[in-house]
């Protein structure tokens, strides 16, 4: 029996959902571990939002099982999830503080605690002075920050963020990223759903990729990248390279050379040859493709 804090925040097994006889989510399974940032990626219309809504118990799956902190969804587990929907907003006529307190109360936070937590968070994002402003008076960026705060006000152990950086300026994007990393530092688990691959690469530990309702990639980000790596190395050097064994071809990039390896050659053997020849190596890097390329490759394959 694992210890209390080691209980898996989320287990999704064989979950399926159809609308009008079309399978929008088709037998997906994945787990989210404690203290990790988990990327949920996929093209538009892949089934990400439907998946999230099932996790949030907004819609019921047709088949499969969803467990949050080891239990089926119930009042208590719902309170331990923080959720930021896509294309969201706030009650226009309420003040910033009233909005935060109302959402906190719906998540069973006691009112005194909610107040101190709201002050703490507003202070953290530099908006304490705006707490009594009506939401309709806020700038778009400020409003998005407050929306983000409603997802974390109740100190949820699992935070689900659907496109949290959409339409944010670089300063606010950095602020939200910092808070996400702080949350992970506190042992919270975060699900990040986005199609901005650079943010996934920067923040996520593991990813699950969904395309046309089906899971197509799942695992450690580094492991996935290794799996999709092209068999090549990037080299910056001084001196003569000459002919090398195990190299299929060379490709000169801006300031570096990419050596594409033959099928059974390893980067290690190539490095040995270079050292042996006394080439002065400035940079030697086994190439890993950007997640974006993997994304396009996987989606492209599925589309064929």
């Amino acid at each position: 029996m694992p210890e209390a804090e080691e209980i898996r925040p989320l287990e999704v097994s064989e979950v399926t959902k159809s609308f009008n006889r079309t399978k929008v989510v088709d037998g997906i399974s994945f787990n989210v571990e404690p203290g990790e940032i988990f990327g949920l990626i996929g093209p538009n219309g892949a089934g990400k939002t439907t998946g999230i809504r099932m996790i949030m118990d907004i819609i019921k799956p047709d088949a499969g099982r969803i467990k949050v902190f080891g239990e089926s969804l119930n009042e208590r587990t719902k309170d331990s999830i923080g959720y930021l929907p896509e294309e969201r907003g706030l009650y226009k006529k309420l003040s910033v503080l009233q909005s935060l307190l109302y959402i906190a109360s719906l998540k069973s936070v006691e009112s005194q605690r909610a107040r101190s937590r709201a002050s703490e968070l507003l202070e953290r994002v530099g908006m304490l002075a705006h707490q009594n402003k009506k939401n309709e008076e806020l700038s778009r960026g400020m409003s998005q920050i407050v929306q983000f705060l409603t997802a974390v006000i109740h100190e949820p152990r699992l935070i689900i963020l659907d496109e949290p950086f959409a339409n944010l300026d670089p300063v606010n994007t950095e602020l939200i990223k910092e808070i996400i990393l702080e949350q992970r530092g506190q042992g919270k688990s975060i699900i990040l759903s986005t199609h901005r691959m650079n943010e996934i690469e920067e923040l996520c530990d593991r990813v699950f990729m969904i395309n046309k309702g089906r899971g197509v990639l799942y695992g450690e980000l580094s492991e996935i990248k290794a799996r999709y790596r092209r068999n090549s190395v990037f080299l910056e050097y001084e001196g003569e390279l000459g002919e090398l064994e195990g190299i299929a071809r060379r490709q000169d990039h801006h300031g570096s050379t990419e050596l594409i390896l033959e099928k059974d050659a390893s980067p290690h053997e190539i490095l040995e040859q270079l050292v042996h020849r006394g080439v002065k190596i400035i940079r030697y890097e086994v190439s890993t493709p950007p997640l974006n390329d993997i994304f396009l490759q996987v989606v492209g394959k599925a589309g064929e």
Partner: protein
Amino acid sequence: MNKTYLIFRHEFLNTVRRTGFIIMTLIVPLLALLGIGAYHVVSGISKPVEEAEKIGYVDEAGGFDQFTSHGNLTLVPFQTQDEANNALAINEIKEYFIIPPDYISTGVVNRYTMQKELYPPPATMTAINTFLLKNLLSGQVPASTASRIEAPLNLVTVTLTATGEVAPEQGGFGNFVFPGVFSILLVLAIIFSSTYLLQGLGEEKENRLIEILLSSVSTRQLLTSKVLGIGAAGLVQVAVWVVSAPLLLRLASSSIGGFISTIQLPAHFLILGIIYFILGYLLFAVLSASIGAISSSSREGQQLIAIFTLPAVAPLWFISLLMMFPNNPVWIGLSIFPLTAPVAVMIRLGVTDVPAWQLAASIAVLVVSIVGGLLITIRVFRTYLLMYGKRPGLGKVLSMVLKG
């Protein structure tokens, strides 16, 4: 704290703080006050002018020469039509009439005037009528009989109970005031509350807070707390109107006088009034919620809900027909049909005795409609609430309801 209560409180406070709500709450008593003021002003202006007027006549039949004075109207005889015409031209008389020789057999009297009018003024009609009648009867019957023939009926109706005793409620217009006012208030409350519910849902769909609400509470909790929250605000509004009513009536009574004293509020009406008020409100709240769920914007929702609020108001359009024939099968049907029942029953209660079986049937149909409506709404609510920007066809909603 209970989440249903939290949403209830949020909806209630949000509604009563709306500028539109505050204006509507205050405007009804203000309009009534204005109405009373206007009544005073108009009745002051339109008081009959106390000026003696002359009407000419030419008696070609003969024998019409007495009883020429009627209040401030005096009948002046002329020998010929030409003389009468001349008098009319120089404004000596305001009009004249001719009693032709064959009047006794035909009853025709020709009236000449320079005024354009739809109908002859009632005072003139009465004066000519009485003049003819009294002259015809003169010498034929005693004077007292003549005046009885002039006004033969002074009807006093007494309503009896089954045991033959004088009933405590004697009906009449006094009894109709409360049902009339109550049904108008009900219609106003239904329209405003359904608008608030639709606007609220529209806003929550637009800003996706509906997803946060649905991920925190069940559909049943959300619907119940919304309907009750906005309903409570509606009741506060009606309470303000009802409390201001006695004050307004007191103000009005000085001018409208004795009529106010005939107003009665029977206990059974008050109880039925409250029952129909609550059932009517609940039915329309449930309808608004389901329409809010399937419509793509709050504007579209308000157009759709009009299909349902129109029948609710409909009995008020035909109120005069209803008052004349309160037990016509059409009204019985409308008293049982759930959308029209609250207003139709309330109006009929003020005019007639509604049989117990009709009340029972109407309340039962309303309750079944509310419960059925709620169950259907819970089924469609979640799915269609999340289909932003597209409204499902009727067929899809029906198949969804059937399949669940």
